[in-house]
């Protein structure tokens, strides 16, 4: 039997009837059409499905929609304001930190959380923070450099 939940996604309030076994990932992609969030492994290994739940980086594939009832969710679609990329997104583009792009939404969300918590993380802190987000293409170096660019600046905006 479906259950009614309410949640706020990228600033918009939603009320939805969901099957109890529905994951947050399925809800975002299939019910709300927010396909920026990717599905890789489905079992917590790759981080492609990372979103922020009440500000905390969360793999949406292992989170049931029911468990986030009443929470506020941010996805990669929410990073762009008025059609303009966030500074972090722009840094990913500028540094060639995106190749196939499949890991990118998850990487961006994990890193957004890191930079909100710690405006100037050291390289080692950056590498540790993204250690649950796998990238098959870039070898991570360019991703780290992109994050470092934002981490170096005094501009508080991410």
């Amino acid at each position, binding site marked *: 039997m479906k259950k009614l939940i309410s949640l706020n996604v990228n600033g918009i309030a939603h009320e939805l009837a969901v099957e109890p076994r529905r994951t947050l990932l399925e809800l975002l992609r299939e019910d709300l059409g927010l396909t920026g969030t990717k599905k890789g492994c*489905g079992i917590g290994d790759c981080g492609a499905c990372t979103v922020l739940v009440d500000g905390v*980086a*969360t793999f949406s594939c*292992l989170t*049931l929609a029911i*468990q986030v*009832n009443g929470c506020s969710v941010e996805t990669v679609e929410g990073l762009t304001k008025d059609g303009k990329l966030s500074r972090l997104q722009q840094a990913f583009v500028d540094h060639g930190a995106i190749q196939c792009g499949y890991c990118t939404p998850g990487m961006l969300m994990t890193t957004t959380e890191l930079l909100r918590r710690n405006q100037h993380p050291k390289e080692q802190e950056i590498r540790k923070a993204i250690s649950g987000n796998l990238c098959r293409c870039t070898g991570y170096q360019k991703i780290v450099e992109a994050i470092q660019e934002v981490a170096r600046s005094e501009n508080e905006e991410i």
Partner: protein
Amino acid sequence: MILPRFDVLVPESLEEALEMLGEHADKGVRILAGGTDLLVDLRRPIIPVHVPRCDGCAKHPGGMVYSTIDCELWLSEPTAHAGGSLRNALQDSRRISPQYLISLHLLRELKGIKRLDNGSLYIGATTTIREIAHSEKVRRCWTALAEGADNLGSPLVRNRGTLGGNIANARPAADMFVPTIGLNGILKLQSLGGERLLPARDFASGPGLTVIEPLEILTAVIYPAPLSYSGSSYYKLANRKALEISTVGVSVSLTLEAPDGPITDVRVALGAVGPTPILAESAKGILLGETPDEPLFKKAAQAIRKDARPIDDHRGSAWYRSNMVQLLSERLLKIAYIRAKRNK
């Protein structure tokens, strides 16, 4: 690959959760905390079964194929023409698929880290691994637990996974369970009838198996207050620094009478070298009452090695694991000793 069909119950109090547990016990019910073990276990994407596609294939004994059986199919009735092995697989999966999950996420009373009046540490079962890794209290006095938390899975796993889930899941390599035994953690198990306290070392009865009663919920773990001159340390040996199950895990806790000894208490817990985490009893016999020095730690490590009962698997051979138990025990005894000296 989707989850099998189940209902999720969301109790608002511990008592309600326990009532729900009793009410649905006969229909297959599981507790859901972070879900990082449970939801993975419930997905069985690929089952090796013989799916007969035609008569000829059905008659061919070697016609085993690896087939992706959708969970939807698991829960539907087996079709008339399905082979015997498929029917068995479907029945098996029905047995493992619970009809109800009871999610603990609204129960605030199960969350949080606090120090009790007697100095011991109380950690609610649904406290996340992340909160434990970030807690200065834990790092200062129960260092081995903080070091387990630092190295569990990845940041994303630590953000969702819980202390209670790690212990209740009872894997022999579990990175919170092993130091919990090393630190002599006491589990608080609650049922409608009351609560009981059980030393963590008595909890596991096999890989993934525990002595928890079907109507009990693990509500908290209590770590005794460290005495003066105590120190602890945990090391996870694994092929990678993240997203890896340990090949060997060792947790050491040591207490001294004075900065230079003698040793008044010691506990060494070993992970991934037996069907459950192992409390290495021989460490006590060699170390208690002695003045700590390198030759003593060497001798103790040789004895601890014999307490391990490792097997060969893809993470490492039994021989390698035994060597590592010895090497790590010696190193961790030294580290715990250095920490103990400093902790007045």
